[in-house]
């Protein structure tokens, strides 16, 4: 599939890219949705996914341009290529949505997630946790005699792997931000 950027009104691009070349295999796509930062805009986006039965694997949102009232919503979603195209077109219909970027088809996006993990343990387990944290370049941002809080940044897979290793070492709590993504170059 070729890149689809639904810019408001750019019928040429959207029409061209709407040519079907669909398979029934589900794919995971990362979408960046640039929206007007107005009350309720996140509810519109989430409501669209809930109302039409689309998946949200991860969602992050924050203002990116205070002067211009712009926010960026990064959504990771799963569906067949036809569903993914529908999701992008439906997002494009929302009035305060300026742009929808499919970072997966636009290619080579950098994706990062941040997580905080609390690991409580004693003796060898505590040492092992610290050693592994060092390998994963996780930082200790809080420590007591019984526990550490690690901060780790990376791809979701890296965080999954780190969390899996921490589990037997006393992982008691985890908070993840969801994905932020930008195209390279």
């Amino acid at each position, binding site marked *: 599939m070729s890149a689809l950027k*639904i810019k*408001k*009104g*750019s*019928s*040429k691009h*959207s*029409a*061209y890219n*709407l*040519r*079907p070349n*669909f398979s029934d295999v589900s794919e995971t796509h990362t979408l960046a949705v640039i929206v*007007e930062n107005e*009350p*309720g805009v996140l*509810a*519109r986006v989430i*409501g669209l996914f809930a*109302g039409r039965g689309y998946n949200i694997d991860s969602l992050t949102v924050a203002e990116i341009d205070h002067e211009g009232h712009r926010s960026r919503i990064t959504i990771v979603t799963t569906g067949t290529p*036809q569903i993914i*195209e*529908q999701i992008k*077109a*439906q997002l*494009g*219909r*929302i*009035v*305060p949505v*300026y742009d929808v970027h499919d970072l997966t088809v636009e290619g080579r996006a950098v994706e990062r997630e941040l997580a905080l993990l609390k690991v409580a343990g004693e003796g060898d387990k505590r040492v092992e946790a610290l050693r592994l944290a060092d390998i994963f370049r996780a930082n200790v941002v809080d420590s007591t005699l019984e526990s550490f809080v690690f901060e780790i940044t990376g791809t979701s897979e890296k965080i999954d792997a780190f969390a899996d290793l921490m589990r037997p070492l006393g992982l008691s709590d985890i908070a993840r931000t969801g994905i932020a993504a930008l195209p390279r170059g």
Partner: protein
Amino acid sequence: MTRQMTGAKMVVQALKDQGVDVVFGYPGGAVLPIYDEVFQQNDIRHILVRHEQGAVHAAEGYARATGKPGVALVTSGPGATNAVTGLTDALMDSIPIIVLSGQVPTFMIGSDAFQEADTVGITRPCTKHNWLVRDTKALSGIVHEAFHVATSGRPGPVLVDIPKDVQFASAEYTPKSRTKISHYQPQVKGDMESITELVEALETAERPVFYTGGGVINSGPAASQLLRELVEASGVPITSTLMGLGAYPASGKHWLGMLGMHGLYEANMAMHGCDLMINIGARFDDRITGRIDAFSPHSKKAHIDIDPSSINKVIKTDIPIVGDVAHVLEDVLKVWKSRGRKVNREALRKWWTQIEEWKAVECLSFKQEGKTIKPQHALARLEALTKEHDRYICTEVGQHQMWAAQYLNFNDPNRWMTSGGLGTMGYGFPASIGVQMGHPQALVINVAGEASWLMNMQEMGTAVQFRLPVKQFILNNERLGMVRQWQELLHGERYSHSWSEALPDFVKLAEAFGAKGIQCQDPADLDDAIMEMINHDGPVIFDCLVEKHENCFPMIPSGEPHNKMLLGEASTKDTIGSSGAVLV
């Protein structure tokens, strides 16, 4: 020139600026300041409905019959929640309406105040866009933006929720001309490469068909004109969805009639057998496609739609063109003419011969015999006796709606108002009120079933109060006819709650409201009774007692493709398989 005014005055001023001449509404605590302003002016006429659902449907009827956006004004809480059905109806059928709702004062929002509801939350999924105005300074700009959003691109309903303190406070009014340009600017021109591809396909197609929808009507009168020109010049047959009736005249020689679940045999067979389908402003609704995997299996499909999400949503498209119908058709004609107006004449002649064979089936034939009026006969007579009028037809939802689409002929756009997508029983009567407001001198008829009509019968008060001579043509079979039909076909003839008990005497009901009532049950009296209805200067309830167990045919059973139509009563048993039975 700067002009300070209250928010309430701003609302009325903005409506005037937008050229609004009528508002349908119902007052309440949270909109009193706006009603006070409505009281003190004469440019905008306010029509007091009897229920907020009626106000929204009336605004829809007005919008569809005039091509201008309709406006409704309701209060907070129940006023807004009563508007939800109308908003959803307008969203499904892409009708431009603006609903203004009152809200509790900003400092009380979230406190569960009297008549407070989260109106923007409730209406978010059933509007194209909505706004909660928190500051009077933003109010006039938002109202202008609301009109822009409702009427641009694919039209739809919008809602502006205005807290009472925002209505009382003063700020500077921004006229329409000085409102900042909206970023919402859907493109109307189609891609020329795709348009050329469509023309190439049209030139060589052996069995082409135009499949048109409500998008042609929404695009405006120019779109219908261009469509007619293209159809006449190319000689390609044309069918239309329920929503698109009138864009191409029913009297036109290339007309196949409506398609879909209760569409005409020749239209559905042409869709099934075509090799080029040109969808203009329709959306492959499930009432049209029937079984998706067997839908028009041998055709190349072109799809012209202003909404990119309509394309490839249901049916895979070979030639997608995103743009406004009128703009795209203009370019299609230009390119087609410049390339020498070619079509495959020889193949088209054969295609028409085939179509004539399908037409010879006469799928709409019925026998009127005995002392009971057949509903089809009632509509055929209504057609015969009103076709010389520039008439506007509304409908409710059910069998009568399908019969009206089959037996009434529409030769112009904006003459046919029916709830297509949402299928809202109770739509037609208030819609007819809106239509009559838009066309005070025209003959406006609401073809209804008795069950649908009762859902918004309170609007008789509105019709009588404002002397709106709307004709309520009720095909009374004392049944929820379409439900009954499905129970017969799908549920072993167990007619669970599908009959109308304790019906009112419609003649007395009309008289109780100060209107005229006519009852007719003898086929011999029908013409005179219809003429009496037409000639009466005022609202009429026409209670037409019809055959109680008539089924609506032709019919594509659920889960079947177009070439598996049921043409009549003959063997309707076991025609819908278990997979079809779960469909609606």
